[in-house]
Every structure is written in C-alpha cells, then in structure tokens.
C-alpha cells in the first residue's frame, strides 16, 4: 500500500530512495514523457479553449491521475517509494531541508538561475532539460524571487471552508474551492503562487522539469482529499454533466483514453496520506 508522507518527516534513506528512483526514471527517458505530456496539455488547452489540465474543474482530477502514473513509474524502480508532499504553509523558507543538497538541492545562482547543488544540478550529470519551451538545458530556480512569501495557512483554511467544489463558468476565477486552491481567484495565490515562488522551470508550462513539482502537487492533491473530508455532503466534483467545453464528472480527461473525474474521486485505492 502506497503511503505519501510529509517530506519534512522523511528519513535520509527515504529521501535517497526517492531521489534515486526519480533519477532512474529520468535516465530511462520516461520522466521526459511526463514533462512532454504537461507541456502538450497546456498547449492544446490554450489553443482549443477547453481547459482540461488547468484553469478549470478538472485541474484536480487531471493532476491526481498525472501523479498516480508518475508514482507507478517510480515504483517500477523501487516499490518502497511514494511521492512525498510539501506543505508549503509550514516549510515556507529557502532554508527548508527540502532544498538541501541531499534532497532537491537549493536555489539557483543569480547569473542564470541555474541550480548548482544537489542531485538535480546540471553539473552532477544526471539532469539535463530535454523537453522545454526555452534554451535552458539546466534546471532553473530562484526561490522567493518573484514573490517573497508562500501562501499562508489562513489562505488554505479559507479555501477548505468553501462548501462548493466549483461553479459556473467553471473557468479561471470562478467561485469555489477548486479555483481558490488553484490560485486563479486572486493575484498570484495558492497553487499558482507556489509555482511562481520557486520560479525558473516551475513558472513555465514545463514545470515538471523541477522534481519539486511532484511534491507540490501531492500537497495540492492532499488538500482536495482534506476538503472532501470536511464537506462530506458536498458534490466531490462539479459540473455533473451537460456543460459545453468543460470536463464534466463522467467525461474522459485527455490524454487518457478512459479516465474520468469520477474515477479519481476516491484516491484511497491508489494511496493514502500520512
């Protein structure tokens, strides 16, 4: 049974096992397929106006499936590995152990935002950016550069208190939990703000190039589960059906041929959170 843990509680061997599995998935070329899928989803969404991966209600089930697929790849390398989650309301400084050389490495150098330490530094030889939207071949970060702070717990609690999952027009900025959590309801807030706070690749449509992407989205996913537990009588997902150009509860979410939001409502067959 897969248990996703708070990254702050991982032992040194657990951190090493996760990093080693990520590096092996990268070496096999599989990691870049995930980066490509993310870039493609963004691109198709922006060109069709049907927001599947982001900016719409399926943001949460789409990323839940995306993480399940990635976690499966990690577990082909090491069955003991799961995706840790990063509670950015608690571990909210550049000095967090998350950014230490034995885990994800630290912030980038000022010259070009290049990450210079840890297993994902380009100079370590195992992390070249292959799928991108710009010419940077190295992982780029500049923590707390664009926005000085990560979202406070009070923002998370305010989102969790909302009784409605999402509401018309089911877009960027529509009222409800999904939009509040995604961060499109305010200026650089919540999930979006975390991407921007990390900067570099996390700010781009190829954000999975930074392994912190998975830890960030595991926490976002946990918050969806937490929200449901707080509102057991609320619809876990909306819209239920009949909505043009929006992924309804039983619509398939591309690129998967037969995965619907309904299929993603219960995460417990796949993993639990500790």
């Amino acid at each position, binding site marked *: 049974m897969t248990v996703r843990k708070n990254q702050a509680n991982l032992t040194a061997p657990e951190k090493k096992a996760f990093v080693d599995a990520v590096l092996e998935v990268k070496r096999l070329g599989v990691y870049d*397929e*995930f980066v*490509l*899928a993310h*870039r*493609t*989803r*963004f*691109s*198709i*969404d*922006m*060109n*069709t*106006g*049907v*927001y599947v991966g*982001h*900016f719409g209600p399926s943001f949460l089930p789409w990323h839940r499936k*995306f993480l399940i*697929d990635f976690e499966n790849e990690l577990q082909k390398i090491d069955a003991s590995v799961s995706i840790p989650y990063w509670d950015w309301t608690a571990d909210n400084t550049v000095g967090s152990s998350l950014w230490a050389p034995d885990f994800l490495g630290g912030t980038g150098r000022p*010259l*070009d*935002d290049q990450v210079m330490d840890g297993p994902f530094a380009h100079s370590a030889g195992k992390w070249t950016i292959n799928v*991108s*939207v*710009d*010419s*940077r071949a190295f992982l780029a970060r500049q923590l707390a550069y*664009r926005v000085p702070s990560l979202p406070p717990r009070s923002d998370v609690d305010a989102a969790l208190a909302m009784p409605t999952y999402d509401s018309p027009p089911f*877009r*960027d*900025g529509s009222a409800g939990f999904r939009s509040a959590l995604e*961060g*499109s309801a305010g*200026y*650089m807030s919540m*999930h*979006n*703000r975390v*991407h*921007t706070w990390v*900067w570099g690749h996390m*700010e*781009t*449509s*190829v*954000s999975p190039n930074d392994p912190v992407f998975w830890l960030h989205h595991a926490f976002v996913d946990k918050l969806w589960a937490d929200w449901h537990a707080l509102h057991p009588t609320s619809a876990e997902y909306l819209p239920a059906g009949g909505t043009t*150009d929006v992924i309804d509860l039983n619509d398939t979410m*591309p*690129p*998967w*041929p037969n995965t619907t939001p309904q299929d993603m409502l219960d995460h417990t067959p796949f993993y639990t959170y500790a």
Partner: protein
Amino acid sequence: MPRPTRRQALGAVIGVAASGALVGMAAASTETVAAEADSSGIAPGGTGAPGSFDEVFEGRRIQGTPAAARTDAHAHAGHAGHAGYRVLIDGRELPVMQHGKSGWSSTINHYERFATPLEAARTAVISLKGAVVVPFDPTA
C-alpha cells in the same frame, strides 16, 4: 503517459498554422521601432483589446501583434483561451494565452496573470536571463 488523440490535437495544429506567417517578421531590424499603440500595449478606446507593440526591453526585441481573424473551422465562439495574439522575443514566438477577464499568461510565466501581452513579454525577458524561447510542436 498516453499521447493526445488526433482530434484533441487538431485545434492546436490550426493554431500553429495561423501563427506561422508572423515568425519571420522580426529579423529585419534590431533597433527600437515606435509602437503602433501606446506603450501600455492596450489599444486606445478603452475596449481592453491589446494593440501592437515593438520595443527593445533589457536588450531583447519584443513584438506583439493581434493575429489575423481565424478561419471558421477554428472559430469556437466564446473561448477566451485563444484570443489570437502573437508575441515574439528576438523573432521567436512566445506563446501567450488570455484567461477571460483575469488576464494573460505565457509558456514562460504560466502561473501568473498579466494585464497585457506586453507585460507578459517583458516578464518573459526578465525570466529568461538571456536564454531564448524555443519553438515546439504543441501536439507532440
């Protein structure tokens, strides 16, 4: 990860074809060219529709142009996501998108919202620190 189906990819293919004609226009000159609209990138008249711009920002030439009207085959009425605006940085396209009233974003700054494509272009320049945008197959 499964690849997108042909049908899902179709809209993106058409979007790229519509932009192709603009890609070559930047190479002519590297000097600052007067913007066709005011420097905010918003067309006069207060409609909120962004006008053109063409300037050098932190050493990079950035240009923005409302794209020509789309073909009927691509005209999904009511979609805010493909407003048909093209941005170039040193002659290479920076894909941008409009999120209804909440503003614009780009592939380089995908999690922010900007009031205008000009602001999106300038922020991309700041983000890139000398790196260049690289075209990609949006359906790959």
